């Protein structure tokens, strides 16, 4: 006869740390943690010793010394009298700008190519396949170098734009001329585009270290306000329509509200375009977009577009034919089918890999080194590192900045993923 007895009280033995599954995971974790701490301590100790051997110290004071070098493309004001930190910011802005426009162009191009690849036009389908395969299977570095060479070898020199008195007398045309109604000059040094200028500027304010143009702010505020007013107008019209059955005429009011204030502001501030002009060696005035930027942008966009095209194609193919047929059966028109049925589902498939492509593109901007584009790596990790000889600080700081950019993008991705995730049953 069996009697229920208490299980014998277990005594703790040391070997249970290894063999008892209740304790084993703690043992493993503690061992791992110890090993990790030892590795970190070892690395830190080595670093300290190495710094001592070299007579260096680890501090970031050099960031506040005078940089002394010039940067070709600067979107925030910078001279060679500014600090290394400011040069870092200039580089960071350059990185972000090329990454941003790269993402925009790559997406546009990628979506077009991905859709065209599915088109029933044989020629276009094949051409797009060739495009995707060629761009995906050749290193990005080659595309960057190649577009740089093409840009600077096939475009005219600034002096080819010159019109001299003799040429006018002889009725000759200059070898090259500006495009887009004589506003944009593409030379082998870069692209000169018109710059917006204000006759009566509102000046700018400093926010932190960045100057923000009040003119730009004024425009943004006015545009937002007009759009909001227009919405109110349309909402009002709708309310009237629902109450009375008659919709008041709104189109001219809309136009007035949308464009009136902006145009008024333009004249109030005296906005005009400064067209680049050939003076001396170069085009003066306007904005110079250097070829290193353009080449990097083109190569990044074309390369990433090939990957995005594949993602888009896969996304569309992933939606089963039955979805379309079911939508038609419900009597939805083709465009409603696309916008209500196909796209929301396809986007769920497309967006996560798309964002990881954006991430790749952002990281790949560091290849600007090949065309000496002065991005974050070029300023902080390049010239500053070289002139100050502080590779440890510069490299760590640079990695940290890249890491934060990446983590921010991933965070956005995760938030999006959560919002569109199918709720699992």
């Amino acid at each position, binding site marked *: 006869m069996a009697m229920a007895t208490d299980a014998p009280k277990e005594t703790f033995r040391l070997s249970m740390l290894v063999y008892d599954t209740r304790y084993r995971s703690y043992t493993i*974790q503690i061992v791992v943690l110890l090993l*990790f701490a030892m590795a970190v301590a070892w690395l830190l100790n080595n670093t300290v010793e190495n*710094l001592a051997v070299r007579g260096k110290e680890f501090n970031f004071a050099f960031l506040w010394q005078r940089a002394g070098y010039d940067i070709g493309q600067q979107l925030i004001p910078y001279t060679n009298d500014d600090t290394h930190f400011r040069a870092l910011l200039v580089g960071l802005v350059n990185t972000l700008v090329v990454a941003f426009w790269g993402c925009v162009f790559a997406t546009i191009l990628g979506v077009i190519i991905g859709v065209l690849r599915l088109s029933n036009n044989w*020629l276009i389908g094949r*051409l797009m396949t060739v495009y995707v395969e060629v761009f995906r*299977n050749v290193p990005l570095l080659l595309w960057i170098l190649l577009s740089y060479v093409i840009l600077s070898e096939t475009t005219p020199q600034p002096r080819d734009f010159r019109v001299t008195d003799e040429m006018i007398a002889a009725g000759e045309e200059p070898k090259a001329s500006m495009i887009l109604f004589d506003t944009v000059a593409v030379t082998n040094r870069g692209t000169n585009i018109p710059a917006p200028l204000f006759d009566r500027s509102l000046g700018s304010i400093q926010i932190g270290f960045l100057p923000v143009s009040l003119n730009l702010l004024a425009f943004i505020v006015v545009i937002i306000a007009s759009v909001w007013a227009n919405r109110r107008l349309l909402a009002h019209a709708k309310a009237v329509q629902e109450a009375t059955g008659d919709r008041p005429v709104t189109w001219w009011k809309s136009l007035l509200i949308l464009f009136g204030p902006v145009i008024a502001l333009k004249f109030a501030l005296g906005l005009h375009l400064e067209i680049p002009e050939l003076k001396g060696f170069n085009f003066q005035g306007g904005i110079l977009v250097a070829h290193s930027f353009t080449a990097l942008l083109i190569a990044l966009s074309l390369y990433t577009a090939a990957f995005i095209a594949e993602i888009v194609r896969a996304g569309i193919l992933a939606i089963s034919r039955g979805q379309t047929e079911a939508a038609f059966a419900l009597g939805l028109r083709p465009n409603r089918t696309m916008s209500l049925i196909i796209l929301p589902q396809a986007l769920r498939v497309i967006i996560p890999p798309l964002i990881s492509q954006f991430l790749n593109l952002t990281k790949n*901007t560091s290849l600007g080194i090949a065309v000496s584009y002065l991005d974050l790596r070029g300023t902080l990790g390049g010239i500053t590192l070289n002139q100050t000889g502080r590779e440890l600080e510069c490299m760590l700081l*640079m990695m940290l900045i890249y890491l934060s950019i990446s*983590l921010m993008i991933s965070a956005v991705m995760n938030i999006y993923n959560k919002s569109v995730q199918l709720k699992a049953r």
Partner: protein
Amino acid sequence: MSVSFTRKEMLPPLPPPVGERGVVKWARENLFSSPLNIALTVLGVLIVWWLVSASLPWWLNSVWNASSLGECREIVAARAGEGATGACWAMIRERWHQFIFGFYPPSEYWRPVLAFGLLFAALAPVLFSGEKRNLLIVLGSVTVFLAVTLWLAETPVVALVLSLALAVVLVAVSQIAPGKVLWFTLIYPPLCYWLLWGGSIWSPIVAMAGFAVLYAVFRLASPLIGLAPAAGAGVVAAVLWWLYLDVPIASFLQSALPFGIDAINSDRFGGFLLAIVIGVTGISFSLPIGILLALGRQSDMLIVKTLSVGFIEFIRGVPLITLLFTASLLLQYFLPPGTNFDIILRVIILVTFFAAAYLAEVIRGGLAALPRGQYEAADALGLDYWRAQRLIILPQALKISIPSIVSTFIGLFKDTTLVAFVGLMDPLKGVTQIVRADINWKGIYWEPYIFVGAIFFVFCFGMSRYSMYLEQKLKTDHR
């Protein structure tokens, strides 16, 4: 009498109208089905026409025999008139070996060629375990490839005979006992190292013996002290072997039984040889690390998981180029003072970390794709964690991740061009720069880029097609 108006025999059917058959039908359906399609077709034709008309003369005027760019231009001018453009492939003809081998001594070209051929022989058993027919195809092709290329590379007779004998033996073994070819995969890494870097044959053998020590200690100790401590003891024994016994034993053996081939310094590696060495080593060493990281990330243990996630996200969050600069600028800070080793080795280490982080994500995808039931079934059978992983989970997870592993490898292979920025001779920028520093070839741009780009394309396109084929083949669907 009646005249029958009934037909006795049928008329032959008329051919379909012109618009509904042959080329015209095909063109109408595939090229001109709608106004939009017509516009697209016209646009496509224009693009193709523009590309061809812009580049065709250049291709047609190619020069294959010249000793400098100037001479090329003269030949083109003489042939096609002043102002004509033409490709100068003479540069490739003269320098192709540099693009492929870097500065590897020409008399030793057979070694990288042999190592490259054997790489496929080593991969074959992993990809087609036990499939006699596929093994025969791969190993047979390797044998033929080696016979031709080694002969072309003017291999010393002894080496030629030995290599071909090895290849034939492999073919024979694959037919008699297909499972045994896997042993070759295991000895391939040290063999490849020895072939490429040369030196005494005893160094790799004695170094590999460290693993034998590990295994022996493990087997001897496990009945006494249990599995986990025995594994630890094995690792300690192996490390001690490598630290204290390896070099003396190797040098003793070398002095007793001298056998070796010329040692080649790492600085002579360049071109595609360098790219393949870095790419293949990086991916193969990163595979075990990647698996561990993926398991760590899936683990329930908080600390292990945090560390894995931290490592993976850190590596994936920074551009490869900063990691390469770390290899060249920072590694010396993190290692004990006075430590110094080859830049190629340092780059390989960082590339391995890089690839490991990406592979970890790929394998995690594979793990996540396995149905929950597989894990539960393994638990129900009473398998412990490692047995479950080894017998049930990993084989399936790895199999479904093979296509993604291949695409990671393609990405890594393309990225090896970035090593140029730390002063190594990658084919794209490093070798091209050296060629252009030569006065004879100053100012040549298109030809090296097209040449290198074409080779990259062939490699990567081939691999991506192969992985698509694998994907189809491996689809044993869990649906």
